[in-house]
Each structure stands twice: as structure tokens, then as C-alpha cells.
């Protein structure tokens, strides 16, 4: 017996590798198939999300303009102590690289970058280039200083030095109303320039308010939709979806027509004698809430509806038959079951609201503009993409943080329930 066993063992172990290899091959094939199936999505996500977002994050600290256009000057300037004027070598390299920057669009890039340090820098560069000689008989430092007295001020060269390193935190700081003082410490900017901290708070307040109103209005409506007979609920559903299919701009414009001083709402109220003079309902915060709630409401109703539709009425009936007050049955039995719909709806509405731009721009006043308005301003009007990226970065961080907190809260609630 023992010998037979001993003999049969090698035979088994010979077969095992073949089987294992086959298994592995089958496994591998399945994996490849799975990868091939998700590959389009993964590639799409890479191209449409990961790359642009990392690009945006990078732009918020990118400071490579001067370094790319004037590599030698930038290198020497980072070594300069900043006390006296830089050496002749810096002047000479600067003159040469400034002249070269005219080709290939480099001048525009450094001009824009240096203007953030000092709004008159672009003009200084233009004036200098206009008369800059190809060669000099004296030294370049004398030539430049004779062209414009500002080249003999250390402040001018300090501005260049600040723009020389590859990265900077100036955009991120500026997006929080902060800056680096002359001693290098972070300090708040002058009071009459401060705006972004308030803009971030305002964005969160508006988005939060809109979400809350959407929830309060959407919950009963979704409940009605889910409990009515199908024929009636279908008609109601069309009313919910109809605005959803209309262009956002048309809906926004429609609110302006309704709410303006001579608009339908005000004239009706005045004809009825309810008010003496027109109410200011648009081009302020009220108008923003009206228009945004209207546009975002379907995004709250639809997830709520789909969850409520799946909830069996039996539980609530059971609770009532066991003696619970109808409201208690609703609140303790029904509402907890809708929680996943509430979570999906609020997060959807909130995240969409936080990035709103065109609606507040059209129906809000100057103190109702949200972060995206400023992102658009820096991107389109002034071409300051560093600033736009920095604001976008903080918006992204705020959204992610809120999402995490929210996710935790909802999960805990569900845990407790279970």
C-alpha cells in the first residue's frame, strides 16, 4: 500500500502543473477579455478626466514662462542675492534673450507673466525692445539703463527674479486673497482687493441653499409621482421632464421675463393691489435661487422617484396596523428607505450647482457671482490661466472634501439603521 501510494504521488504531481497552467491560461484569457471590455472606458477617463484635471492642477503652480523663454537669464537671476544691481552678465544675457523672444511668441508669454508682478512691465518691455541695439559699444548694463531708468532699479530685477523659478504659489495664494510679502512670509492682500474667500463661501452657500430647496420641493413631488396611479403619474412626469429638455439659456431668460420689474409676476401682484411698487425679484440672490432651483429640480426628483418606486407600501401599512401614528410610520419606516435616493439627489444637485456659471451671470447681481464666473473671466477675458486653474483647484478640493464628509455621514446612517 505504502509503495503504491508513493508511486502514484509523482504521477499526480506530474499532471498538476499541466492543469495549473491550463487554469492560468484560462484565467489570463478571462482577465484580458475583462481588460479589453473596460479599456475604452478607462482610456476615455484618462483622456477626458485624468489628463485635463492634472493639467489644470499643474497650471495652478506652473511658472515656467520666463524659464523657458529666457533660460540663461532665469538661471543667473536665481543665484543673484537681490541686494545690488545684477552683474553685467545678467544684463547682457537678458538683452540677447529679450531680442530672441520676439520670434516664436515667447515675448507675449513673459510679458503676460511679468505684468502680474507689475502692471507696467509689458510697456517697459515694448519701450525697451523698440530701441534695443543689436550690439553695444559700452556695456549692456549701461545700454539698458540709458534706454529706461527702470532697469537701474533693483525692484525691476526682483520682479524678474520672482518669475524665474519653475513653480510658484502666487496663483494658489491669490485665489485665497493671500500673497507673499517682501520678506517672503504669507500675508493677506489689501482689503480693497479681497474677494475670493467670500466668493468661495458664497458658492457653497448658494449651492447648499439650492440643494436644500430642491430637496424640500422634490421630496413631496417624487412621493406623489411614486404613489399616484401610472396614468396620472405619467402626465405629471412629463411636466417634470419638459423643462429638463429645454435649453438652459431659454429657461434662464424666461425667468428674467417673468421676474423683472415690468414682468408678469410684478404686474400681476400690482394689479391685485398686493404691492405698491415692483419687488426686486431678479438680478439679485432671489433670482439666482429661482432660476437654479428650477433648472436643477429634475436632478433631485428623478433619483428620488426611482428609489421610491421600489419601496413596497407594505412596511408602512404594517407599522400603522401595529399602532404607529401615520406620521411616525412615514418618518421612521418610509423616509429611511428613501435615504439612498436622497443621497444621490442631493450630491448630484449640489455638485452641479457648485459649478454654475451662466445662470448666476444672467440673473444675479455682482455679489451673486460664483467661483466659475471668475474662472471664466480669467480664462476668456484676460488669458490668466494660472489664476483660473488655482480657483478651479480649490473648487475641486472643496467638492471632494464635501463629498467625503457626506459619504461618511450617509454610510454611518445606513450602518445604524442596519
Amino acid at each position, binding site marked *: 500500500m505504502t509503495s503504491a501510494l508513493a508511486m502514484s504521488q509523482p504521477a499526480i504531481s506530474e499532471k498538476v502543473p499541466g492543469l495549473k497552467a491550463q487554469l492560468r491560461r484560462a484565467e489570463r484569457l478571462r482577465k484580458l477579455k475583462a481588460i479589453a471590455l473596460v479599456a475604452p472606458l478607462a482610456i476615455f477617463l484618462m483622456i477626458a478626466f485624468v489628463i485635463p484635471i492634472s493639467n489644470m492642477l499643474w497650471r495652478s503652480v506652473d511658472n515656467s514662462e520666463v524659464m523657458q523663454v529666457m533660460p540663461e537669464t532665469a538661471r543667473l537671476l536665481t543665484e543673484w542675492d537681490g541686494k545690488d544691481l545684477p552683474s553685467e552678465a545678467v544684463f547682457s544675457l537678458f538683452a540677447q534673450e529679450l531680442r530672441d523672444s*520676439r*520670434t*516664436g*511668441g515667447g*515675448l*507675449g508669454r513673459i*510679458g503676460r507673466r511679468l*505684468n*502680474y508682478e507689475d*502692471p*507696467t512691465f*509689458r*510697456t517697459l*518691455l*515694448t519701450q525697451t525692445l523698440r530701441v534695443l541695439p543689436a550690439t553695444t559699444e559700452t556695456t549692456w548694463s549701461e545700454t539698458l539703463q540709458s534706454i529706461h531708468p527702470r532697469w537701474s532699479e533693483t525692484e525691476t530685477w526682483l520682479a524678474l527674479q520672482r518669475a524665474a523659478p519653475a513653480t510658484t504659489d502666487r496663483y494658489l495664494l491669490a485665489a485665497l486673497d493671500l500673497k507673499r510679502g517682501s520678506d517672503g512670509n504669507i500675508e493677506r492682500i489689501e482689503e*480693497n*482687493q*479681497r*474677494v475670493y474667500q*467670500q*466668493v468661495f463661501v458664497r458658492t457653497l452657500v448658494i449651492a447648499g441653499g439650492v440643494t436644500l430647496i430642491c430637496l424640500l420641493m422634490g421630496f413631496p413631488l417624487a412621493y406623489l409621482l411614486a404613489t399616484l396611479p401610472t396614468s396620472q403619474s405619467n402626465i405629471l412626469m412629463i411636466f417634470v421632464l419638459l423643462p429638463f429638455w429645454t435649453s438652459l*439659456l431659454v429657461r434662464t*431668460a424666461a425667468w428674467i421675463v417673468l421676474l*423683472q*420689474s*415690468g*414682468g408678469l409676476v410684478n404686474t400681476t401682484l400690482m394689479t391685485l393691489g398686493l404691492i405698491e411698487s415692483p419687488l426686486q425679484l431678479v*438680478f439679485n440672490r432671489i433670482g439666482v435661487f429661482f432660476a437654479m432651483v428650477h433648472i436643477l429640480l429634475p436632478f433631485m426628483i428623478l433619483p428620488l422617484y426611482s428609489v421610491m418606486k421600489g419601496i413596497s407600501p407594505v412596511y408602512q401599512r404594517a407599522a400603522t396596523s401595529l399602532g404607529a401614528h401615520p406620521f411616525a410610520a412615514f418618518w421612521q419606516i418610509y423616509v429611511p428607505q428613501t435615504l439612498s435616493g436622497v443621497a444621490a439627489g442631493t450630491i448630484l444637485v449640489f455638485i452641479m450647482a457648485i459649478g454654475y456659471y*451662466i445662470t448666476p*451671470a*444672467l440673473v444675479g*447681481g*455682482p*455679489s451673486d*457671482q460664483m467661483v466659475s464666473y*471668475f474662472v471664466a*473671466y480669467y480664462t476668456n*477675458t*484676460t*488669458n*490668466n490661466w494660472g489664476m483660473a486653474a488655482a480657483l478651479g483647484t480649490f473648487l475641486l478640493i472643496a467638492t471632494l472634501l464635501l463629498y467625503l464628509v457626506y459619504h461618511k455621514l450617509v454610510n454611518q446612517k445606513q450602518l445604524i439603521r442596519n
Partner: protein
Amino acid sequence: MNMKNTLLNTRKTALVTGLAIATASLALSAQAMTVISFGGSSGEAMQKAYYAPFVEKTGKTLTPGDYNGEFARIRAMVETGNVGWDVVEVESPELVRGCFEGLFQPIDWAKLGIEDQLIPEAVTECGVGSFVWSTVLAYDADRLEGTPLSWADFWDIETFPGKRGLRRGAKYTLEFALMADGVSSTDVYDVLATEEGVARAFAKLDEIKEHIQWWEAGAQPPQWLVAGDVVMSSSYNGRIAAAQEEGRNLAITWNESLYDLDYWTIIEGSTQVEDAYEFIRFASQADTQAVYSSNIPYGPVNPAAIGALSEAQAKRMPTHAENLIGAIAVNTDFWVDFGEELEQRFNSWATR
């Protein structure tokens, strides 16, 4: 032109732009001169006034196209050396930026030979003015009792009670505030360049802050005036003229208005420079400019064109001699340099 377009128009324009790229790339192979404008109703007027007559007169081919002011497109063309456009209409801030960056060829005014025929602002280093538009004080003559004559009257809440419309932003607003505070129109930019001047402008704005309704799109001021939301407003003159043609009794105070130009530029690297000069010369003549301005209420840069217009049309032109009294040109260099800082300060002020 971007700002003059309504936001609603943007999508349509984007579509048209797509078509324009297609036409522009076709044109490249045929070696015809490509002229790019902002399209829309201005582009149609240009077709009638400049493109068609130019082809007819010279027998040269010309490919018109339009774009939406995307500066990045021009920059990409020049940087890659693949220049498909020859003559391009740009707004003044882009002219200043592009000239600085070397994207436009410097204009040889001696060669063009029309310097003395145009208004001074039309003559710049890299661009030739194509038309003039203006930001003016507008009001509904049917509703307002009395006639506001200046920005000081605009600020006068007691004589002219009611809300006022101003563009949401620092540009134009700060100039108007200083003029209302008694700064003469010729000194506005000198005063605004100082810290005290900026503080003075904001202090003046404080006086009527609660009475201002801020507009964003150029279509809003005439609409608000007609609806009675505001009693007077700053507005682009073209928008008011359009409302007047619809029969609205809107009126314009030209005193202390701010005018700005769009420019023709020749892209650096263009191979059709001779034709480009000929086209620009043609488009700057009094008779062609008169045809353009009779189709759209933008003022000719060649003042002689005014005489060829009807009396009613001539009076709507920013460059009509009477309308130029007390008016100044927007200092684009100033706004390119200080715009960002002042806009931030404006937003900070607006929230307080």
C-alpha cells in the same frame, strides 16, 4: 465684438466658425486672400460693402470667413507657421496684445497712404481701424422727464429718480464715475492711473450703488429701458440703434461717451500682403465705409463717409462730428495693463 454679441448668440457663432474653418482651409489651397471678420450682421454688411465690390473691382479672389475672436487660433497659426488667414478683424485689446507678441505685421502707413483720411485712433502700429462703436448714456425718452446731458446727470438721483444700468465690471464704469465726479473727459485716464483716482472713482460709485442694476450682456440695457426696469443705462450704441429701428423711442447722450474701434490686421507670415494692403485701402474709403455704416450702426473711421449717409443714419454714428464732442477713445493699453487688478477691486467693492 465678443462683448457686443449676446451670450445667446455664442453657440450659433461657434457653428458658423466651424464652417468658416472649413472654408478657410479650402481657400489656402487656392491661394486666395482670406479675410476673417466676426461674422453676424456686421459680417453681412462687410460682404455688401467690402468683399463683393472688392472682387468686382479688382478681379481678385477673396475668401471671407468668420471667427469668434479666438486669439489662441491666431497665435497657434503664427507659431506653427501654418498661416491660413491674411486679413483678420480684431478688437482693440487683442490688437494691443497681438502687436506686442508679434502676431500681426506692422502696418507700413506710407505704403498704405491713407493715414490723413482716417480718425487718429484708426492709425496704429499693427492695425487699421475698421469701424467705431461706442458706449453711451442711453435713456427712454418716453419715460424720462428731462434730458440727461452728462454722467453727472446720470448720478443725479434727485432730478432723475429710478434705477440705472451699468456694465458689471470696472471697464467703462470707472471712467464714467470719474467724469461724473467732474474730471474732464480728456483727463480721465491720467486720473485713473493714480491710486487716488481709483479711490475717487469707487467713492463716486458708492453714491449710487444701491440704484444700479448691473448688466452683463449687450442686449440687456435696451431691453431694460423698454421694460422700464431702469430709467437710464450705459449701453453699446449699436444695440440702441437696433431698438430705435424697432420703433422704440430710446435716446442717446453722446457727450462723454467712450468709443472703441475694431481693427483690420495682417497676420504675420501671410503670403498675400500686397492684396491685403489693397483690400484694407479699399475698405477704408469713404464710399465703401458709407455702404457698411448704412447697413449697421457702427461708425466709419473715414469721417468723409458720414456725408454719404442719410441724415437719420449719420446722427447715429459715433464718429459724427457732433457726437464726437466730449467723447473719448477707450485707452486699451491702460486696460490691458491694469484691467485685471481693477476688475478684482471692482468685484471686491461690489460685494461690500
